[in-house]
């Protein structure tokens, strides 16, 4: 996860190689640093999670197979490479 310097409500995340911007408005009182892991739901970070938990969840999702592939495809199709539209989008 990276945090663009010009926006306080967005973070660039990498989900199994798919990169996009997610909204971090809902993470009150949980400061984020590059490299942190977050629980993402429909384009929003819901809570910060520790790395072990994140890796476990990722492994689980990858184990789901097609349903997770479909989810990643939706994520991929849902927006251009984050960063290109950070000034106006999100």
């Amino acid at each position: 996860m990276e945090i663009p310097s010009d926006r306080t409500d967005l973070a660039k995340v990498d989900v199994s190689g798919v990169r996009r911007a997610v909204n971090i408005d809902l993470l009150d009182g949980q400061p984020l640093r590059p490299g942190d892991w977050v629980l993402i739901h429909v384009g929003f970070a819901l809570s910060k999670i520790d790395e072990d938990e994140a890796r476990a969840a990722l492994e689980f999702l990858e184990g789901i197979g097609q349903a997770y592939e479909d989810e990643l495809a939706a994520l991929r199709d849902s927006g251009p490479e984050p960063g290109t539209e950070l000034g106006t989008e999100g």
Partner: protein
Amino acid sequence: MRFVDEYRDADKARALSAAIAGLCEPGRTYTFMEVCGGHTHTIYKHGLEDHLPEPITLVHGPGCPVCVIPMGRVDDAIHIAERPGVIMTSFGDMTRVPGGRGSFLDAAARGADIRMVYSPLDALKIARRNPDRQVVFMAIGFETTTPSTAVTVLRAAAEGLRNFSVMCNHVMIIPAITAILDSPGLRLDGFVGPGHVSTVIGCRPYGFVARDYGKPLVVAGFEPLDILQAIHMLMLQIAEGRSEVENQYARVVPWEGNPRALRAVDEVMEPRPRFEWRGLGLIPRSALRIREKYAAYDAERRFDVPGGRVADPKACQCGEVLKGALKPWECKVFGTACTPETPIGTCMVSSEGACAAYYNFGRFSRRRVRDASREASR
């Protein structure tokens, strides 16, 4: 991958199963409901029921967001989508949910402009790019999803967007659990509480389940061992004569939830007097609508909607499945007329639906599976 191994460890699963079996009183049965569709998915993917002692039965609750959308609401959304100049957006699962006049996909085939989005913010993006069109987001989901819609409305308001609105179908888990607890003839011994919903609402709102109904509830994660451990925690409470709310998923779920998310929802939305749930009927104060203050972003105010109730198809027994009264394979059309490719009922649409989970993992009957494995071992 140390953590994963820990949560999948077969020895630990066997040890937990043995510990659970050790807590079973002779001659007694135990029925627990997993409220969340994500749990249903894990249970069937990993065949967890086969690892539980015979006296324990798991029933599936109404926690799959698309499964509880009644046909009348789908028809209302299609009514909006078919108005000239409208772009209707929603999550992928929603596009296949059948209404009385077919699904979003059928409406798209008739010419409506319906687009799948990954996030409500993507619907906002479509609105910015199409200033001459009205863009509507059909919002569905429990408390995990509601804050995202609320923040999206706040953002649309901050930007003064005039061509974006939300058809709000957000539902709340607590009234659903209450309706299940109050439904006659249903005997449950406890609940495996939802994980991701609880990241938002926390654990406190479940207090009444333990206090007023005397049923233990354990908030659980989504790994197989999470669920086994939650069942063990439920069994321990019963053995010790306790009924409390416990948090098995503390590594992700804060006891107090996410106050900022709750504030955003409260700013934008308020409870509806009542809302129809598929299979459960009208439940008071069980869903949210957009507050007057944000009326400009409420699709139901911007467009007239018929608001009619549509009876479920006679053959479909999703209602009984959602209440835990019927196992999916006991439904008359399960796996024959109703499959994930051609769903009649909502429980077959989403991978979180109980019927789809059973169908996709080929688990039709626990007893049949057991009998078959006993036969094979002879």
